[in-house]
């Protein structure tokens, strides 16, 4: 076991790998007929590659990388809209650094900044709020993106802006939710998924019950997990145990951080500020019902879509993705990144075609970054 020394607790890791192997044998999982476990969260994908877990684990267990990287599922049209807003006179456009290099049809935000737009990388929407306070003559726009882990932060920031009556602050809301795309994947006849590893930090906010439908309606086990390697291995073992016992429930491996019912303050702020859009477009997955959030009318003054007339409602649909990219198939776990014809040829971290190659949580970036380590493990 090549990487054992890298684990903080190699003894525990080895014991878990052995227990997983026994369970996998018991349910008859083999290389030819593997049990497919989807890790939904890009942070988990990153962790799996960093530690080579997919190579260390029993050959009958196959990780399918899910769509849980908010940057990766961002359609190019959304990036184009960001650039359009950022290029308006007087605007300071603020964003998390993760989104800067994502390619649009025209420019990425990085390229728009180089071309003169006032685009600034911030750590928090609170930084954008502070910029608005300090620059009353400018319109400060924050690019709100991410799942339920970051959604409360923009909701609380809008509430604060409203309390202060700031007239020059708005959010370009592209927040999305985790449960709805899982439902879409479960409804996809091409997918064979036997169980799920759920994102821990999302459940820290929303709790574990939004996943009840996976167990109850689809009969699949899901275990909410931390992102340390032993957390992941333990969660795989919990999924396999459920399969072996013919059960399907939602279990919480990460109870030391994830409360069963989530964080009430965060959920109240989200409910106050956001409502669901009828549907929202995901790169690689298409339109998914009720999967995107919109700022409620009572906070319209802080909605960049409304202020600039740019955004989802106004967007032209069906803008084609770049030919030859397999981003959609990689995103849904149908193929591995190395099976994309562009991987390492037309698409590298320096010259990305897809966001999966840019974000640290993207599967293509993870394959690229850890390719050496993976070759050594094989």
């Amino acid at each position, binding site marked *: 076991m090549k990487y054992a020394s*890298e684990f*903080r607790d190699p003894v525990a890791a080895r014991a878990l790998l052995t227990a997983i192997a026994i369970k996998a044998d018991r349910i008859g999982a083999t290389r030819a007929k593997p049990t497919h476990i989807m890790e939904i*969260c*890009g*942070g988990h994908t*990153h*962790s799996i590659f*960093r530690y080579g877990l997919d190579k260390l684990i029993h050959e009958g267990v196959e990780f399918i990388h899910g769509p*849980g*990287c*908010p*940057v990766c599922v961002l359609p190019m049209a959304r990036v184009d809209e960001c650039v359009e807003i950022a290029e308006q006179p007087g605007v300071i456009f*603020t964003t*998390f*650094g*993760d989104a800067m290099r994502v390619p649009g049809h025209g420019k990425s935000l990085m390229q728009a900044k180089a071309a003169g737009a006032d685009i*600034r*990388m*911030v*750590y*928090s*929407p*609170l*930084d954008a709020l*502070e*910029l608005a306070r*300090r620059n009353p003559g400018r319109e400060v726009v924050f690019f709100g993106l*991410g*799942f339920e*882990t*970051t959604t*409360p*932060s923009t909701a*609380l920031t809008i509430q*604060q802006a409203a309390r202060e009556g700031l007239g020059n602050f708005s959010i370009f809301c592209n927040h999305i939710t985790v449960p709805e795309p899982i439902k879409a994947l479960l409804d996809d006849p091409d997918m064979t998924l036997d169980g799920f590893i759920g*994102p821990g*930090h999302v459940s*820290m*906010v929303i709790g574990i019950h939004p996943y009840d439908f996976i167990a109850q309606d689809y009969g699949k086990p899901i275990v909410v997990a931390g*992102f*340390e*390697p032993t957390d992941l291995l333990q969660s795989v073992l919990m999924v396999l145990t459920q399969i072996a016992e013919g059960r399907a429930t939602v279990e919480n491996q990460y109870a*030391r*951080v994830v409360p069963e019912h989530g*964080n009430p*303050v*965060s959920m109240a*702020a989200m409910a106050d500020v956001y409502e669901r859009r009828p549907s929202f477009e995901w790169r690689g997955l298409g339109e998914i019902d009720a999967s995107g959030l919109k700022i409620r009318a009572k906070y319209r003054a802080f909605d960049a879509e409304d202020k600039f007339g740019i955004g989802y409602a106004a967007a032209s649909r069906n803008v084609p993705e770049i030919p030859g990219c397999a981003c959609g198939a990689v995103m849904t776990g149908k193929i591995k990144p190395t099976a994309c014809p562009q991987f390492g040829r037309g698409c590298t971290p320096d010259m990305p075609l897809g966001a999966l190659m840019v974000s*640290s*949580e993207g599967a293509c970036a993870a394959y690229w970054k850890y390719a050496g380590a993976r070759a050594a493990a094989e």
Partner: protein
Amino acid sequence: MCLGIPARIIAITHPDRLMAMAEVSGVRREVNVACVAGNDLDSLVGQWVLIHVGFAMSLIDEDEAAATMEALRDLGEAQEALDQMRAAEEAML
């Protein structure tokens, strides 16, 4: 952006806005504590929290903070978060 980073609350800075000073690996950064505040703001001082994009989202114990920090370092995410905090200071100018 999706993984939280552990920090210790060292002072309450703006009680009205539920803001506190947190320290992560020697870097100080003001964070919002609305999600973990409860009734007694002052009792937060000295506690460990998981911070997501400037918001404390969960109280954790010291051992969990240390383990999480180590995992984030392994993944390169700790440095990324700290770099983003520093970059944000430049963005304010």
